[in-house]
């Protein structure tokens, strides 16, 4: 089976002032990668104007583009409109579901969505107490369950989980410990480990580190732009 080259970046946080600046780094992406994954926080405030910049920066590339949204893309309460604008530009936006691409006969399956927080095993919020806390952790639990089902049903040769929030602590190293519960949740990793995947991609932790692994041994890569310090990471499966 042919090797797949996965390009990935998150947290590009585009707005009008950055129009065209990211695009110029993507011209030769077809020479480096078979697909581009965008790990959320594509905009700064989640406005439709900023989403227009994102659509223009990533449309008509020589490789397919698959994205999830991040917390910034939700800030103006227009996530559905933003997703629709990106879809119109040919960018497939995942919302706790799956997509399968055919790359020269190799089926690449990608499952994912924004994800959410809650913290990591033994040091996390639980479904107990005030309704506000239950709503917080309940959001993460429902997302993780949808990913687990999507992974279970996925028929593909290579399997990737694409998230904005982090499924593991490893890739948060460099962030203050106190904010870990807002950076991700182990429930996301648990879903991936339960059904199996070859790689987990996430963003959100701008001060974290690139490389980690889930408790079950799946490689995790934090592709937040400030972490990578390069236009995108390329991972070969």
């Amino acid at each position, binding site marked *: 089976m042919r090797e797949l*080259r996965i*390009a990935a970046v998150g947290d*590009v*946080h585009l707005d009008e*002032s*950055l129009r065209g*600046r990211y695009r110029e*780094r993507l011209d030769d*992406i077809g020479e*480096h*990668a078979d697909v581009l994954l965008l790990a959320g926080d594509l905009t*700064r*405030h989640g406005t439709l104007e900023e989403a227009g910049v994102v659509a223009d920066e990533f449309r008509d590339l020589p490789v397919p583009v698959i994205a999830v949204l991040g917390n*910034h893309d939700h*800030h103006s309460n227009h996530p559905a409109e933003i997703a629709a604008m990106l879809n119109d530009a040919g960018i497939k936006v995942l919302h706790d579901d799956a997509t399968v691409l055919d790359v020269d006969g190799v089926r690449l399956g990608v499952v994912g969505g924004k994800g959410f927080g809650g913290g990591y095993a033994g040091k996390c919020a639980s479904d107990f107490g005030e309704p506000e806390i239950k709503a917080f952790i309940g959001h993460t639990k429902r997302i993780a369950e949808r990913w687990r089902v999507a992974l279970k049903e996925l028929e593909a040769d290579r399997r990737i989980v694409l998230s904005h929030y982090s499924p593991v602590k490893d890739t948060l190293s460099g962030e203050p410990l106190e904010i870990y519960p807002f950076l991700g949740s182990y429930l996301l990793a648990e879903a991936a480990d339960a059904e199996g995947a*070859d*790689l987990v991609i996430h963003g959100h932790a*701008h*001060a974290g580190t690139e490389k980690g692994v889930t408790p079950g041994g799946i*490689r995790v890569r934090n592709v937040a*732009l*400030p972490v*990578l*310090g*390069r*236009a*995108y*990471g*390329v*991972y*070969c*499966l």
Partner: protein
Amino acid sequence: MEAPQYVAARVQRALAEDERTNELGIRVDVRGEQLFLRGQVTGNERRLLIADVAREAAPGLTVRNEITVIDVRGPGEEERL
């Protein structure tokens, strides 16, 4: 006098909540009369805006803008997993 921790927390919240910035990833430290900003952004315009918002949230302090602008080039080396 207001404790420096509260000033730093107010600036950090302003950076996150002010719609000119909505910046969550900047470290803010207050030492005496100085306010230090550290982190990474992708453009100089954004770097200057962050300092403006910080200055408004903490008038009277000298803002030391130590935020770096990252200039992202090329994809770098690929990794085989």
